[in-house]
């Protein structure tokens, strides 16, 4: 079954007080996300990621198009009990403590009192806020608010979770924890749809990614395919200027002082390493070239394509 089915959602904002000027927020978007997938929604700032999520959450109305979530109309209130949402840079009622906030949201999502009493302490423990259970949110840091945001998004055990820039503003440890959390959600069978402009996060977490730019879908791809495609290139770094003339047969060499580096294909790797050995150069490192998703991302930003399913 499809978790999310976007059927031509489109948003055109009107700006200006007297003469309204149309501004495209999202061009007709078609997208299908099966259940159990971690789906990354990539794009630079202003690409239309948040607009898409706001449309799916019913916070703004589309100019055209429709969507289905878990095989139900997306604006159906019943479907909202089965989804979770973390807004970008979340801000919550700062007069409440995390427990009170989660109790409030739990009530709104239809979670029974007994379940709320059971789940809230466990969830606060899971997101590392058990000790701050009775501290008002006005005293929380940005990272702590993000944890509260994640907790409120999954409190009612939704089947599909939407995260808008979940790692934004977090330190490396916080990012690692959110990554682990998303992976654990996926292991529990939940579908995760998250927007980000941090490509390393998308590469580490997603089954598939979509690239969006200027409100237009530029492409959808399976991350594993992109990674395996690019793992066929390696960066070789060595010390020893004497090997440079011989190594230039494999490609362009970049030299910085005593250290030189170059990128070779998988078929050239063994020959290049043999050349370094024969020239008595000191091998420093051989690494597969990362940034496969980055290349795909940059390529897609440059070329407009038809809406892709």
């Amino acid at each position: 079954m499809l978790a999310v089915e976007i059927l031509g959602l489109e948003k055109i904002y009107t700006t200006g007080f007297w003469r309204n000027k149309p501004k495209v927020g999202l061009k007709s978007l078609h997208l299908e996300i099966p259940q159990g997938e971690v789906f990354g929604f990539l794009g630079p700032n202003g690409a239309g990621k948040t607009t898409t999520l706001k449309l799916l959450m019913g916070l703004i109305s589309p100019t055209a198009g429709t969507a289905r979530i878990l095989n139900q109309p997306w604006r159906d209130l019943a479907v909202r009990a089965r989804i979770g949402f973390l807004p970008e840079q979340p801000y919550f009622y700062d007069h409440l403590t995390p427990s009170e906030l989660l109790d409030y949201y739990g009530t709104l999502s239809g979670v029974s009192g007994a379940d709320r009493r059971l789940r809230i302490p466990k969830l606060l423990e899971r997101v590392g806020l058990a000790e701050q259970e009775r501290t008002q949110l006005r005293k929380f840091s940005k990272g702590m608010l993000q944890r509260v945001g994640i907790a409120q998004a999954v409190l009612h055990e939704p089947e599909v979770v939407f995260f808008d820039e979940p790692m934004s503003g977090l330190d490396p440890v916080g990012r690692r924890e959110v990554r682990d959390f998303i992976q654990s959600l996926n292991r529990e069978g939940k579908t995760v749809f998250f927007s980000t402009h941090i490509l390393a996060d998308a590469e580490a977490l997603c089954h598939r990614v979509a690239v969006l730019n200027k409100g237009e879908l530029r492409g959808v791809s399976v991350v594993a395919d992109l990674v395996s495609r690019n793992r066929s290139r390696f960066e070789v770094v060595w010390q020893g200027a004497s090997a440079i003339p011989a190594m230039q047969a494999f490609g362009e060499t970049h030299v910085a002082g005593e250290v030189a580096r170059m990128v070779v294909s998988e078929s050239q790797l063994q020959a290049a390493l043999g050349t370094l050995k024969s020239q008595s150069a000191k091998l420093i490192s051989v690494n597969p070239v990362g940034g496969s998703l980055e290349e795909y991302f940059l390529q897609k930003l440059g070329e407009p394509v038809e809406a892709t399913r």
Partner: protein
Amino acid sequence: MISRIRAIAFNTFREAVRDRVLYNLVFFALLLVATAPLLGEISIGVQRVLLINLSLSAISIFGIVISIFVGISLVSKEIEKRTLYPVLSRPVGRGEFILGKYCGLLGTLLVNTAAMTVGFYIALMLMTRDFTHSDANILIAVYFLFLEFVVIIGLSLLFSSFSSPLLSALFALSMFVAGTFAADLRAFAAMAHGPEGWLARAASYVIPNLASLNVITRVSHDQSIPAALVGYNTLYTALYATATISGAVLIFSRRDLK
């Protein structure tokens, strides 16, 4: 649906309490204490009239200020701070949200007005050392003041559903001032002819009839309040509040949350 509205109302009440909205009760108490020496200088009959006028006017002013300034921020603050997003992404209708916020502020004002009324009666007892039937009559004036708050909160919510907080405050305040002169407007509408007459009649229907909700002078002079007026004001307030809240829900339901 009821449990969701109740949860939103309780959260609104809790927010008002924790944001120290009820601190105005302290000012009310200070006002009563501060006027005590003044009242001691005049005769007992005039003292009573003065205390009733002063206390009920204070209840009215504090309540109106809270109704307008908290009322206009009920929705706009949630939009501005984006606290609304995690609420409306749940199975919560926009109408339920508006109704919950309205009931929450109404609850706050109920507690506020009740506490001030208790304070007023204690001051009255201390001064007159007696409790008469006409003293109980004052409760009707307090009830009418509360009805006034019901109307003003509805208007504040309505204005804030489509305009900025500043404009909403301005509109709500204008309606309050115009509403206190509703009786004059109606008298003018009855006399005027032509376009002015039509305009005045239309305005007299739109502007809330707050004049009929103000019986402070009457109760302070021991004049009785007819039961028919209590019934009329209750019905009028219910209809007016329903109209304003329905308008707010209608506008807010179509609004994009930027």
